[in-house]
């Protein structure tokens, strides 16, 4: 049973560029959440997708957008990258409210 997978592992972009990160949830899970984790900090909730719609959103600007596909996989898009967007981006999947499972993360560096 494959766990949550994310791609790519690492990414280097320059300011102003756009980036797309991908996530496949754990088998049987239908809900995908995205988090941003800066060094030394806990994960910060970006948004959650369920049934291909954004169900909940954290305090992130509209530059952060997402999508969920019929197979429950998801993408996170970030436009007009800023230096402060450099972080570990985590995808987590869940089926019920009791817990969620994380992928290995995508480390984004903005130069």
């Amino acid at each position: 049973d494959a766990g949550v997978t994310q791609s790519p592992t690492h990414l280097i972009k320059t300011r102003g560029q756009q980036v797309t990160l991908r996530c496949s949830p754990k088998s049987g899970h239908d809900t995908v959440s995205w988090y941003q984790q800066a060094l030394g900090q806990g994960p910060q909730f970006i948004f959650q997708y369920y049934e291909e719609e954004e169900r909940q959103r954290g305090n992130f600007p509209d530059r952060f957008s997402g999508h969920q596909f019929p197979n429950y996989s998801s993408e996170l898009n970030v436009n007009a990258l800023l230096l402060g967007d450099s972080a570990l981006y985590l995808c987590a999947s869940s089926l019920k409210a009791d817990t969620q499972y994380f992928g290995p993360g995508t480390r984004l560096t903005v130069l």
Partner: protein
Amino acid sequence: QKEVEQDPGPLSVPEGAIVSLNCTYSNSAFQYFMWYRQYSRKGPELLMYTYSSGNKEDGRFTAQVDKSSKYISLFIRDSQPSDSATYLCAMNSADFNKFYFGSGTKLNVKP
């Protein structure tokens, strides 16, 4: 006030010690409580989750929830150097569709 408070540490203990990690929270609606272990530059790994109040034990790990005090704990017995990581608490309510995280406690177990 943050929804979830967690002492960032670092916490340094000798091998074999009993470790106590704690979080406090403000929202009495939280029902599901989780502990994650995160090694440097990796995704969080689910260690334990509990529902409502009480204790749950799994090997060397014990999770405790005291809803009356809005306080949760993770105990690690016979700590090992391989336990050195950052420990994150998280919690949720079935109504919220969103998980709230502490900022993480960094643990160092010295051989």
